[in-house]
């Protein structure tokens, strides 16, 4: 999640933003469902060895999306795809100054990644630094045959040569805006939505 402010508590995914009034929904639950169904079709189209796929969600937002993609793959092609969770916090490159450390999220990699086609799933792609960190983390778990990336939203502002293979929606944003996947009930249960909050974050968000 490129969107995490280090001060925010990602353990509480859908905390009410102070600037609730200035937030607009750019993807509602139906749009998210459609995007994930299309991406599942694209995954099937692009990969030959479908039994070898391994979906890995980046917490917090990537996890429910990875689970939904696994469900879609089952529905479309009767695939039983492993879903893992990979926290990138310990691999971040921006933890060197002053301030408190961000909380760690859960990592659960239920099976080895060696020779698998790993599909990293994140909610919002931006600078590319989270994906970079996720790739480093992934390599500590073995040697995948290939790594592909899903982002529900690509908001631009890339700082690293990272390509997103499957994009739900491109949403041009200002750097100062905050883009967030959230659930109204606060637990990443559907209905989900993606919101843009004006002037919500700092430069790197």
């Amino acid at each position, binding site marked *: 999640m490129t969107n995490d402010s280090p001060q925010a508590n990602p353990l509480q995914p859908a905390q009410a933003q102070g600037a609730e009034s200035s937030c607009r929904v750019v993807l509602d639950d139906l749009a998210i469902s459609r995007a994930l169904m299309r991406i599942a079709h694209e995954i099937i189209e692009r990969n030959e060895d479908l039994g070898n796929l391994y979906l890995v969600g980046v917490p917090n937002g990537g996890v429910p999306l990875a689970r939904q993609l696994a469900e879609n793959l089952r529905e479309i092609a009767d695939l039983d795809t492993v879903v893992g969770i990979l926290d990138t916090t*310990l691999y971040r490159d921006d933890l*060197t*100054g002053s*301030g408190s450390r961000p909380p760690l*999220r859960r990592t659960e990699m239920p099976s080895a990644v060696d020779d698998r086609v790993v599909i990293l799933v994140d909610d919002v792609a931006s600078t590319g630094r989270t994906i970079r960190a996720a790739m480093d983390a992934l390599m500590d778990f073995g040697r995948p045959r290939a790594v592909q990336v899903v982002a529900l939203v690509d908001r631009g502002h890339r700082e690293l040569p990272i390509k997103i293979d499957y994009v739900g929606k491109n949403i041009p944003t200002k750097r100062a805006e905050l883009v967030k996947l959230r659930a109204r009930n606060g637990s990443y249960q559907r209905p989900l939505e993606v919101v843009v909050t004006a002037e919500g974050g700092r430069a790197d968000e």
Partner: protein
Amino acid sequence: MMGRGLLGIEDLERADIETILETAERMQEVGRRDVKKVPTLRGRTIVNLFFEPSTRTRTSFEIAGKRLSADVVNFTPASSSLTKAETILDTAKNLDAMAPDAVVVRHAVAGVPKRIADELGAPVINAGDGAHEHPTQALLDLLTVREEKGRIDGLTVTIIGDVAHSRVARSDIYAFRKMGAEVRLAAPPTMLPADVESLGVKGFTSLREAIDGADVVMALRIQFERLAGALFPSVREYSATFGVDRAKLRYAKDDAIVMHPGPVNRGVELSHDLADHRPSVILDQVRNGVAIRMAVLYLLAGRTRVEREEE
């Protein structure tokens, strides 16, 4: 709280303890990987400053630091010149000039880590000071109990042995009380602390009463090297009265666990059988010690910088 270091459990809020435990639970996962190393403290330097000999705790901190990719330096001053405050502060200032990112201090005199922390820019982690505190030991005990029982709130914890002279007991009392457990002490009268009441715990001189219905039975190490038999007439008598074996354990809850900060005097604090087998969880405590120290180092030895290109 955690900004300047970890000097004792007494200074911590319950929320701080929760943060450390949750972080440690994530660190446990790193310890189960084939590649047990993450890059988060790359380029950071951690100094182990042990004025008192210790292999286990120092090794645990060393492994923890290395698993986070920090450079760990062991600094063990000769023990002869240690009691002079000037020497300690000189050492601290010398260290500070080498710009470490965290300093882990053990000293035989209570309060020395605090004194060093006052001189240093880097956060100081107390790895045991006299009979004062040993905070990471108490935290790893909490983690082990939570792992076993799923909670700490509402449990009954009985600590047995030389509580009055034990920094482990002192930190554990603060820790388990803050997390909502009932704490009982069992010891000969000479080994019970004078301030039992103010610590919010109950003192017993009967093991059977103290252990009755306990969820956690924690035996402390009898420190022969320090006591030289001053506080009780004989080892055999201590062992018969306060040594924990399966027969005495019957008074505790059926699913009670047995803990010990190590190293165990076999046949004294614990029977040989209990020292090695369930329900004792001594090696889990050791394993969790690394996770706790990783968590504390992660929280203290590095801070967050956000990119501010547009500011």
